[in-house]
């Protein structure tokens, strides 16, 4: 295995078991960057992204929620204005399922957990692909990849079901009626990283891990709307996305 450029340690950790070569795709010309290398391979780039649109679909899962599973389908459109830089617009929509733990807490201990259920997400982000490289599988087949970092802004749509609010006979106030379910949108900062694996000159398989960080008003999820808690809190959704994309 041989690698070069920043983020090498990360790459090395990811590439155990296969032969890999990665290189840093920065702003300075490649000829300059390899000027001290006595022998170089110079050839047309296997996969060019400059001035190409990329349309993709991902299966996304919010991975850091204790009591629910949130699954979303994501569509994204990316324009690569250079080999290294691109702008991505993405939208996700999905649903969540309660985990057994949540149901057990309610059934056995009457503990009702307050949950932020992510229903949709949308964002615009800049993508920077500083590393491209190749793996050689044991069979001899080569797979080219790039690694990208992503940063941007968007909205996270949270669904409040108010199913944690005590109602009926269990409630201290028998006349209490829980608020009607609603969705609220919050401005979200996004950061993450991922990789694309180019399976031919127009198709890639990709994965990414993104942190969706947003601030929300505590009052939005309050059961008692007459005396809501004051202030705000923050939430992070660590979203793992797996998908494929086509370049045009």
């Amino acid at each position, binding site marked *: 295995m041989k690698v070069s450029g920043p983020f090498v340690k990360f790459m090395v950790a990811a590439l155990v078991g296969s032969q890999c070569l990665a290189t840093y795709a920065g702003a300075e010309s490649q000829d300059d960057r390899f000027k001290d290398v006595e022998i170089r391979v110079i050839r*047309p780039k296997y996969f060019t992204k400059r001035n190409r649109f990329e349309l993709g679909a991902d299966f996304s899962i919010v991975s850091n929620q204790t009591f629910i599973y949130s699954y979303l389908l994501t569509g994204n459109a990316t324009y690569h204005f250079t080999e290294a830089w691109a702008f991505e617009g993405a939208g996700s929509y999905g649903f969540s399922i309660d985990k057994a733990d949540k149901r057990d807490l309610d059934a056995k201990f009457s503990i009702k957990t307050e949950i932020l259920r992510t229903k949709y997400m949308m964002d615009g982000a800049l993508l920077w692909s500083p590393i491209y490289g190749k793996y050689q599988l044991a069979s001899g087949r080569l797979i080219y990849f790039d690694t990208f970092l992503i940063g941007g802004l968007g909205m996270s749509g949270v669904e409040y079901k108010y199913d944690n609010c005590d109602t009926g006979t269990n409630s201290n106030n028998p006349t209490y009626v829980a608020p009607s379910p609603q969705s609220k949108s919050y401005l979200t900062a996004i950061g993450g990283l991922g990789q694309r694996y180019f399976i031919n000159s127009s198709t890639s398989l990709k994965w990414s891990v993104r942190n969706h960080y947003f601030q929300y008003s505590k009052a939005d999820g309050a059961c008692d709307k007459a005396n809501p808690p004051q202030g705000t809190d923050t939430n992070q959704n660590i979203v793992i996305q797996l998908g494929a994309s086509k370049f045009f």
Partner: protein
Amino acid sequence: MLSKLNQILVFVFLACSSIAVADLRQAEALMVKKDYMNAAPIFYQAYSLARTQMERSRAELGLARTLEAAGLEYSASKYFSLIARRGPGPGNPFFAESLDALGRINDRVSLGRSHVVQLFQKEVDPSQVPGKARGFYFYFKGIEAFDRKQYDKAQEFLTRVTAGSIDYPKAQFHLGVIANLNGDSARAVSAFERAISEAKGPESSFLKEQANLNLARVYYEKKDFRKSMRYYAEIPRRSDNWLQAMFESSWAFFLIQKFNNTLGNIHTLHSPFFENRFFPETYILQSITFLRLCRFTQVKKSLSEFRERYKGIFRSLSQTINENQQEPAKFYSLVKNYRVGGRDGGDIAPILDSLSRTDTYRDASYTIAAADSETSKLSRAPSSWRSTGLIDELNDFLSKKKFAAANDSGKRMLNNARNSYSYLQDLSNQTRFINLDMQLGKIDKLRGELNVTQSNDRTVNFIGGLQELEVGQDLEYWPFEGEYWEDELGGYVYNLDSKCGASGSAKSK
């Protein structure tokens, strides 16, 4: 007493004759029913008992047809050849059909050069050659003359191979070679291009590659190195000809002062992937390229690597040639054992490897494999094939064919091996001259002798893979850090400046 004997002889003759005629009728009836396996031995019996030439010819033709229909192509060719060899004429009405069938068989399983040469030993009026067999006939007559270096005669025959014949692309290829030998590069180019455009199907890929290589050589000789490079670049990486193209294009790069490309190509040729390939001249080219860059330490290193790599070959090769001189078929087996038997070739492995990639080895191997496959089919034939003696005759024929193929190929390969020996000796002498001149301080003189072309092609830059650098092209760079990657072979470009100083030659691109 004498008249009694005559009467007996006449009786036996008539009896045999009537048996033969009856056999022929029976066999022909079976053939109509497509019962080839039972028809063949009866035809053979009729052939053995035939008392007139016409009966014999009918039996030969019937036997040949049934064997061909039964998928025993070489065996069929034996009897078709017997008819064809007698030449055309009123006494041989099946000549045209037999020649046609031989052309058809040769398209499917190569008959081999020695077989075809024997076929046409008798002078034939070309107008008597049937339409479908004309391509086959003229092509092989042309090749026969070509092998004897009678190029005018070869050209005369080869130009008569018409478009549409399966032999047309091969004929065009040879016409290209002849035109080039005659210094007519324009005709050579059009002949090679016709060979490429007319060669269809995957089985023609080798011919196309050879034509591209020859086009590259024609442009190389014309000092049009840019065009030459384009044709070298046409040879696919998976091809046996690819390394040859890499090697020859290294010289083209050298002549247009693209020394970093020359060294890059040589880096590929010297990679461990090709440690048994025979390209000794690359060390000489590498040393003179370093010399042009005034990198004298590397010049010495290249020369010493040459000696190190090839010193063992001289004695072993000479010994192997001497041992096999009288038995070329044994030499063929040696090459075969190296190629397919996985036997270590020892010091001469690069020579054996190089020989195992020649047309002559390939053709012989194909013939032998096809003959083996027929022998195996024959072992499953009905018992009547054995009782009539047909199987023995066919096995004997196939075994002789295999021996002839191995022997002929062995002879040619021994000749190639001798040439390789002389080539190595010549290169070895060149290393001594380069060293001597360096030691005597004649570097300027030597470098002057290596003065290269002032061609306009020098202004073009090349990336790996023999490709011209295009403006605005997105490139990928991979550093070579001592580890060879298979996909990078052919893509290396050195990054060395000339150390000749202000008075030296131009800086290497």
